[in-house]
């Protein structure tokens, strides 16, 4: 196991095609951010430090005046806890790293870099710099497209309810597709999550309660069925 500049360069090259998938997502985050009243500096700060698109979009959907600290942190936790097992899965690399190389590379993990990293480990890859190369290049593109989206949103001055804001919903609808592992595994947990969330909202409970109630009950149902081998 090594961590070399050559590995980082190989990661940067590997990240090329991923940027095409990331760009529209980042644009949406920028546009929605602008629509919710965040300044360019605030948008870049969030994109740079949080660097996790789905959780940023979700927090922005719950955005309010003043900024909703608890709701945004819960949204970030609910969406990003999926990344916790990723670090554990990449342990063959991380166990050999120390200091900034370890904690810095962990900070750049995203779904794409995780998938590529696992594939590289399985193919016998021994250079953990690869992971950081992917992470860093995607981070730069992320900042660039988020800023572009914010600036475009500001120029066009979209009114609330403009069709372009459907992009946020459309993003999550599309993200559901690759998560679908068949009717038998997903239908009941997903339906449970949707129904509980909507009923909780109709009961008048504030966000993020409906979202978390739906997500956790659906995940609990999926876990229960998985464990009894259904």
């Amino acid at each position: 196991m090594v961590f070399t500049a050559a590995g980082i360069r190989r990661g940067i090259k590997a990240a090329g095609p991923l940027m095409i998938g990331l760009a529209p997502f980042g644009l949406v985050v920028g546009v929605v951010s602008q629509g919710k009243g965040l300044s360019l500096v605030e948008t870049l700060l969030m994109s740079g430090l949080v660097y996790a698109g789905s959780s940023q979009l979700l927090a922005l959907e719950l955005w309010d005046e003043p900024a909703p600290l608890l709701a945004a942190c819960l949204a970030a936790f609910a969406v990003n806890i999926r990344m916790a097992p990723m670090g554990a899965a990449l342990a063959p690399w991380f166990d050999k790293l120390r200091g900034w190389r370890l904690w810095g590379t962990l900070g750049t993990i995203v779904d794409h870099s995780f998938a590529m990293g696992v594939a590289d480990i399985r193919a016998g890859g021994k250079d953990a710099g690869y992971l950081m190369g992917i992470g860093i290049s995607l981070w730069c593109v992320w900042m660039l497209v988020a800023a572009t989206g914010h600036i475009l949103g500001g120029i066009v001055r979209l009114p609330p309810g403009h069709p372009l804001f459907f992009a946020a919903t459309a993003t999550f609808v599309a993200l559901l597709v690759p998560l679908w592992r068949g009717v038998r595994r997903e239908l009941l947990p997903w339906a449970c999550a949707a129904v509980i969330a909507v009923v909780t909202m109709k009961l008048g409970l504030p966000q993020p309660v409906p979202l978390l109630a739906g997500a956790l009950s659906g995940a609990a149902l999926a876990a229960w069925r998985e464990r009894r081998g259904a």
Partner: protein
Amino acid sequence: MLRGDVFITIIGMAIVTYACRAGGYAVLRVVRPPPFIDAMLRNIPGPLFAAYVALALSNMGPDAWLSAVLVVLTQWKTGSLGLSIVVGVAAVAALRPLIGT
């Protein structure tokens, strides 16, 4: 412009997110969570996004519902996230004058 409440909220999100990224490695390396919790953590993304989409669509009209179906079809057939988003937005723009609320 950087407001205090926004700054604190972003820092909070950043700390939580970094804890998810790095804490997962730091914690899961030494302790295995109980099997049920482990299974729940692995199964959160689907129900989470399903709940989110259900909440969003329940506040919208038939134009958005039909557009969501088109987004699913596009993502399923092409696998392109960018194209799916564009199709969704275009569908809402086209359908809202016809069947929107």
